[in-house]
């Protein structure tokens, strides 16, 4: 049995449409028009124990909705979803003791008081013995480097410290399934790296299955051997990130450095972007035209250095999304 099994899962919502203007708002006091939206459209996938999987997709593609269905916050409209053999939407206590959901922009920590109070509350909620609690907490404090943050009111913590405390609160009961929604949102680069390292550590140490969504391609590149790409509620890709890049990277990037200043107008005529000093430029060209274009540039400009690179993951994903 896989840790997570999803078959033809779908979710539909009703939303009401707001009419503009004063008259519209008076009308909507009495009458609202509803329309239904298909947020997740018949998706199927399996995730094994200990697997780390990334969810990729534009806003509104259905990532969060899927995570919520996996955690039991949303019930499916149709299809089936099983996590550790449970139906999440029944929210059985035994199931709840084995999962955790972390949402980057939401917090379960009490704002006014130190984080360790929330940890204690979770100890009571998850029914952890003093020994289990101590052991788990010490480990997390060590892994997340939380020692100095425990007794400071949460509102006084930095965003990075708060996110780490948030992770600790979510993992005290050592869940087998961890669902992360934008865990690095708003963190600086150093902190992002620390959080990523921790997620990887936790995954290795406890063989936990982890599913995460992120807008940050570095997260997915560093953490997830496998990614699922969603578009308009459907899975359009399931496989490794490298392969996704190869499949969708229709363009390569040519980077040029000039020996002398080049007139911006002249280089712009070739469709390339030039920097403000006029000494270097880059252009994105289709794979099939790389050699022809490279030769053309070499003969037309005083080039001292030229490189030909794959487009960055960020760029590729952006092109896929903008196409959608």
């Amino acid at each position, binding site marked *: 049995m896989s840790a997570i099994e999803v078959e033809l899962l779908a979710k539909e*919502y*009703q*939303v009401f449409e707001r009419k503009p203007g004063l008259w519209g708002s008076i009308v909507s006091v009495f009458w609202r028009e509803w329309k239904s939206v298909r*947020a997740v459209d018949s998706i199927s996938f399996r995730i094994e124990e200990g697997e780390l999987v990334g969810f990729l997709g534009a806003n509104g593609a259905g990532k969060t*909705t899927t995570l*919520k269905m996996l*955690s*039991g*916050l*949303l*019930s499916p*409209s149709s299809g089936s979803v099983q996590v550790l053999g449970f139906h999440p*939407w029944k*929210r059985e*206590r035994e199931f*709840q*003791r084995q*999962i*955790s*959901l972390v*949402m980057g922009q*939401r917090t*379960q920590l*009490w*704002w*006014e*008081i130190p984080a360790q*109070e*929330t940890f*204690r*509350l*979770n100890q*009571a*909620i*998850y*029914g952890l013995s003093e020994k289990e609690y101590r052991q788990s907490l010490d480990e997390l404090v060590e892994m997340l480097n939380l020692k100095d943050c425990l007794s400071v*009111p949460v509102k006084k913590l930095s965003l990075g410290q708060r996110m780490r405390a948030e992770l600790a609160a979510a993992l005290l009961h050592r869940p087998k399934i961890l669902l992360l929604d934008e865990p690095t949102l708003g963190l600086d680069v150093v902190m992002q790296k620390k959080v990523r390292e921790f997620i990887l550590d936790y995954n290795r140490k406890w063989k936990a299955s982890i599913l995460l969504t992120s807008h940050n391609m570095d997260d997915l590149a560093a953490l997830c051997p496998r990614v699922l790409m969603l578009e308009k509620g459907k899975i359009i890709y399931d496989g490794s990130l490298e392969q996704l890049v190869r499949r969708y990277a229709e363009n390569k990037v040519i980077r040029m450095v000039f020996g002398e200043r080049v007139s911006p107008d002249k280089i712009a005529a070739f469709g390339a972007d030039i920097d403000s000093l006029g000494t270097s430029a880059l252009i994105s060209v289709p794979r099939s035209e790389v050699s022809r274009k490279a030769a053309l540039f070499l003969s037309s400009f005083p080039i001292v250095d030229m490189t030909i690179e794959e487009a960055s993951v960020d760029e590729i994903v952006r092109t896929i999304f903008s196409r959608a």
Partner: protein
Amino acid sequence: MKKYLRVWWKMSSMSLMAQISHPLGSVGFLLGKIVRIAFFFAFIIAIFGHIKNLAGYSLSETALFFLTFNIVDISAQILFRGIYSARRAVSEGDFDFYLIQPCSALFRLSMTTFDFLDAITLLPVLVMTGQILERFSSPGFFVHCLLYFFLTFNAVLIASSFHILVAGLAVRTQELENTIWIYRDIMFMGRFPSDVYGPLFQLFLTFVLPIAVMTSFPVRAFLGLLSPQWIAYAFTLAGLLFGLSLWFWKTSVRQYTSSSS
């Protein structure tokens, strides 16, 4: 059961810690609550400076009605303080955490902020009620006191039902931020003996919005003015309402988990 006690104890001590972190605000709330009770008391006493009875009740009887209202009102607030921020808990996602953790979400939502300020205001009200009850030593005093106690408890149960209904609404619509204030404002009518409201409106307050059952029945039973049929009605009503409110809560959570985005 033991687990819930531990969770409750932890949450209460946490909210006490949080409240202490801004003392000035807390003092404002405490003073506000005390002033409200004091002012109405002053009003009732002042009124009786000019008249001898109100709808047939003496000053101490009228005061007893007012105190009973306060007992029911404050008890419900102690138990369900969290409902007042239910909408915020839902919109800011706290409620999502309650739902995925292995502990009743209704319990978390209502008890999450135990208000020790309410507990402080309840004490003097209880003491005053005891003092007034003592004045009425009649032959059936003990039985009347028991009736008063159980009917007051019954009233708290009805108030609880309303709070649970409101919690259900907040989860269902994510919009009715003020529903609980409707309840509070309508409860305003419970400050006076329900006889004040004239026969027709009193029926309304007995059967439709059972404020009379909550705040007037206990006192009338104590004074020996309530027939056994009405007492039976009060208990039945509370049982039904409580069951209904739990059912409504369940369906609301079901709807929440099938519609939110």
